[in-house]
Structures are given as C-alpha cells and as structure tokens.
C-alpha cells in the first residue's frame, strides 16, 4: 500500500479505536500491529514484546514514579493550608492583592509536583474559598487559578517533560532546567495581568486588609520554608550536576517523608496510600509509553515519519510557519486528547520532521509543553477546567471563558519563546555537566 493511503488508513483507525473507548495504550499497540502486518513480513508480536521490554526497562524513566511519589506524599500534608496563610501577607501590598496567591502558590506547588491538575486542585481547594469569602472577583479568582495550575507542567519536576525526554531520548535534567525560565516568565505575565486588571477595576476589588508587621509575616510563612528548601535542594542538585534526575527524585521522596513526619501528617495509611497512588499513576503512564514505543517501532518500518517529513519539507515552510501550523494542530488535538497522549502520540511521527527543520529538541520540548498547557485550559477536554468545575460547580465552558485572558497570555509566552529561544536554552547551557 502506498505511504499516503496507509497513513490515512492508520490515522482513521487510530481515531476510531480511541473514540470507541479502548484504553490509549492498547489503541496505540493495535495501530502499530496493523501498520506492521500491512507492510512487513516481520512477526509483529516479536517487535511488540521487544519494543515494550526496551521501553519499560529504563533507568531514566525511574525518575517518573519517584517524582510522582514525592508529589503524592506532599499532597497528603497540610502544605496547601500553609501556602495560603504563608503567602497572603506578602502579596497584600501588590495591586491585585491576594489574587497573587493563586499564581505564587501554584508556582511553588508546581516545583514539588509534576502534574498540572494536582497543582490546580491543591491550591484551588484552599485558595478559592478564601478568596471568594473575602469578596474577590469570581471571574478573576477562577480564571487565574486554572491558568496558574498549568505551571505544574513547566516548572520542574514535570511529568510531561520526563515523558518527552524518554520518547525523544533527551536529557531529563537539561529539559527540567530549560523549563525554569519559561515557567517564571509565565508566572510574571500572569501576575502582571492581575496587577493591571486590579488597577483598572478598583471598584471590583475588596477593601484591603490591615497591614501585617514584618515579623508576623515571617512567622506566618515559617512552615513554607522547609518546602522551599526542598525545592531548591532538588532543582539545585540537578542543575549543579550533583545528582541525576532519578537521584534527585529519590532525595525528594525521603525529604518529603521527613517533612510529612515532622508536620505530623505521616501515618501508615498516608504512606501506603501515597505509594499505591504513585504505583497506579506511574503504571498508567508507563503502559502508554510501552504502547507508544511499539507504535514508534512499527512506524519506523512503514517509513511514514520520513515520508511525512519530506512531504512537509517540500512546501519549504519557514520555521515560524511550521510552528504556527503545529500550534493550531496541537490545540485542536487537545480538544479531545489529554496532554500525555498528545505528546507520546505525536512525537513518534513529528520528531523527524522537527529535527529536519533544524529545531533544537530541548527547545521543542518546552514549546510542546507550553502548547499542551494551552490545550489544558480549552474546553471540552481540559483537566484543569474539570478540576475547577469540581471545586466550584460552574460549567466547564464558563470556567473556560473565565480563563480566556490567561490563554491569550500563554499565546504571548509561546511567541516570546519562539522569538527568543535563549529564554529556554541559556540556563541549561550553563549547567555544570553541560556538554
């Protein structure tokens, strides 16, 4: 079968199987199987077993369950309560006041958790009721929370960056460090927006609270200090080349356990639940990676990725044109697929194309995460929107509309990252073990 027809058939088959409710990992494996039996005499089952084994047994990937476990342990502490009490006195004097707790709180939690939905839920559970009780504008409170939650994907550790690193064989450590500046950039953009909005809409802001003396503020945020040290320890040891991503994650696990024990949240039940939850989540992701590895191997046999890269290359698109097309494609894909599946599914096909166009794969990883973040807050499929729908009881499209300004800010962030690739690439180039 000619390559073009074959790729169309496989694409249709993939969407049909996915839509019918078959689990993503198994759907990917099925498409890989069909791709092999229609083009090759190679035994498909043998390719399946070897590629799944190669994908599942990976030292680099062990960072994934460890970071997930660390997040699960901290999720079961009182971290989110402390976050509001500790941050509120510090941001009170900024225009926009306590709305900034959403952004800063999410940024801090993002640095201990690799998941955007978990970040959104943890901060939202405490911050949202407090903000609404104090009379803050509901649109702003909900919108900034959904937007800031996406920082979980960008600020290290990030589950989706580990996945990208594994499927493209890039360094997890370098990708993590590359995500730091774009994450801070996004947080600054969000805070600037909150400040600007508050200055323009003074009538919609609640009256300020009495000022808190400096020592009182320090006292209120005392419990946040260990978490900040934990974050600096984990990211710093990766940056300094002292530890690999897995080692840093294991240190993170032990320090989180210590923190949880010290704050009195560590019980046998919470420990057991955190391990089992981490086991399930990491199993779900590894299974998708195993299915995707088989699909990628099968795709290599069909020659589709190379043909696609040549076909698109024939248009002589400028790199910016290609990126614009990919951005639209990803946001559309994000309307019905989750971020992890989007990354594994497309990388097996798109990476040859991206490499041919001369993009740095570390840079492209950050770009893809930014775009996935945008897809995360667009209905009908956007997990941050689901989470906030759960907390607020508002319809997902209403939450999506509240989040629209932050979506536009993310478009600006993507444009900045495209215009100034150094934003992504400078920090990793200064790492101690940079090659």
């Amino acid at each position: 079968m000619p390559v073009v027809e074959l790729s169309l058939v496989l694409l249709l088959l993939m969407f049909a199987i996915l839509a019918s409710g078959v689990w993503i990992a198994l759907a990917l494996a099925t498409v890989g199987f069909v791709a092999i039996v229609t083009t090759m005499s190679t035994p498909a089952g043998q390719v399946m077993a070897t590629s799944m084994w190669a994908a599942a047994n990976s030292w680099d990937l062990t960072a994934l369950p460890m970071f997930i476990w660390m997040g699960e342990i901290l999720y079961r502490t009182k971290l989110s309560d402390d976050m509001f009490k500790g941050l509120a006195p510090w941001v009170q004097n900024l225009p926009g006041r306590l709305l900034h707790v959403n952004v800063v709180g999410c940024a801090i939690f993002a640095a201990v958790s690799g998941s955007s939905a978990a970040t959104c839920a943890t901060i939202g559970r405490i911050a949202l009721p407090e903000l609404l009780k104090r009379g803050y504008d509901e649109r702003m409170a909900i919108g900034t929370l959904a937007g800031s939650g996406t920082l979980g994907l960008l600020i290290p550790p990030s589950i989706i960056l580990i996945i990208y690193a594994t499927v493209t064989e890039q360094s997890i450590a370098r990708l993590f460090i590359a995500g730091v500046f774009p994450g801070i950039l996004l947080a600054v953009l969000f805070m600037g927006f909150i400040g600007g909005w508050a200055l323009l809409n003074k009538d919609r802001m609640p009256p300020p609270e009495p000022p808190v003396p400096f020592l009182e503020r320090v006292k209120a945020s005392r419990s946040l200090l260990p978490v900040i040290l934990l974050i600096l320890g984990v990211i710093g040891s990766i940056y300094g080349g002292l530890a690999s991503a897995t080692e840093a994650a294991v240190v993170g696990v032990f320090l989180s356990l210590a923190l949880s024990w010290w704050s009195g949240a560590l019980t046998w039940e919470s420990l057991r639940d955190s391990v089992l939850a981490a086991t399930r989540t990491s199993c779900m992701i590894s299974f998708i990676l195993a299915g995707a590895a088989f699909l990628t191997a099968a795709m290599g046999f069909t020659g589709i990725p190379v043909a696609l890269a040549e076909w698109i290359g024939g248009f002589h698109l400028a790199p910016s044109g290609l990126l614009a097309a990919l951005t639209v494609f990803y946001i559309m894909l994000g309307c019905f697929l989750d971020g992890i599946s989007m990354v594994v599914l497309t990388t097996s096909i798109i990476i040859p194309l991206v490499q041919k166009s001369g993009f740095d794969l570390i840079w492209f990883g950050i770009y893809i995460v930014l775009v996935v973040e945008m897809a995360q807050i667009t209905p009908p499929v956007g997990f941050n929107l689901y989470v906030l729908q759960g907390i607020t009881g508002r319809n997902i499209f209403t939450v999506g509309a509240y989040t629209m300004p932050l979506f536009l800010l993310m478009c600006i962030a993507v444009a900045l990252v495209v215009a100034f690739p150094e934003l992504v690439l400078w920090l990793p180039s200064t790492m101690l073990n940079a090659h």
Partner: protein
Amino acid sequence: MRRALDMLYQAVLVLAACCLVAIALLVGAQLAGRILDGTLALLHLQRTGFIILSLNEICGYLLAGASFLALAGTLKAGAHIRVTMLLTSVGEGVRHYLETWAFGFAAVVSGYMAWHITHFAWVTFMFHDVSSGVLRIPLWIPQMPMAIGALVLTVALLDELVIVVIRGRPSFRAAEDSISLAKE
C-alpha cells in the same frame, strides 16, 4: 471466585509497589554511600568505596516489573486513561454496547501482548540471555513479572467484560468518571 480475583489484583499491585519502594531504597543507599565517601574524603579518611553493582540496570528491571504488575490494579481503580467523550455523550443503552466492545477488544489485544511477552521471556530463558552489565543477571527474571502482569491484566479485562455484560457497567465507573489528579 470474586474474592480470589480481587486478591490476585491486589497482590500484584502490592508487589508492584514493593518494586518502587525497592528502587527508592537502593538509590537512596547508593546516594548515602556517595555522601559518606565524600565526607570521609574531605576529612582525609579512608573511603568506604560502597557501590551497588549494576544499580541502573536493576532499577530499570524493577521499574519494568512495577509498570506491568500494576496493570490490573490500575485498571480496577479506573486509572488507565481512555477517551470517554463518546461513552459519556451516548445514552446508557448504546454505552452498554460500546463498553462491551471496548472490554472485549482490549482483552484480545492484551491477550496477544501477554502471549508474546511470555514467549519472549521463554526464548530469553532458553538461550540463557544475560544483562550486559557487571552483574550478569539472567534476563528472564525481570521479564517474567512483565509477562505475569500482562496476563493478569487480560484476566482483569475478561472479568470486567463479564461484569459489563451482566450489569451493564464496569465496576470502576464512578472512579473513572471522577477527576483523577494524574490525568493531564
């Protein structure tokens, strides 16, 4: 029967969790050794030279075991992801047929996978393949848990298929429809 199956899923899930804990302990021990040696070197004392041989390989094998052994438990907890947009937008009657198809089809694919991974592990065993590191670990040892995990997943999918046909809905419907934090 029900009790035995649930105990089977729970047992392999706990085994998987033990693999992850083992990774944390092994890497933690090696790190502690490195830090101790670094401190000893600073004090101009004799290093212990503590090293876990083939640590990276062993951790990779433990991860493969953890990932596959947990498959059935993860399915039963409703944590494996799939596109539920169509499932939730059709009526209960159509959903019944779709669910039956999804579980039946998934059981076939999973069975195929389990068979080939088992075969792969068997070939490795017959040819005495060993790992390439310092410790010559026979590769069938880490491949066997993979095969077992895939097999138990097939059993769990068949089990759910029967439940769907009889009761019209999978046992983990509520868990699957609620928001799971890990899903991005």
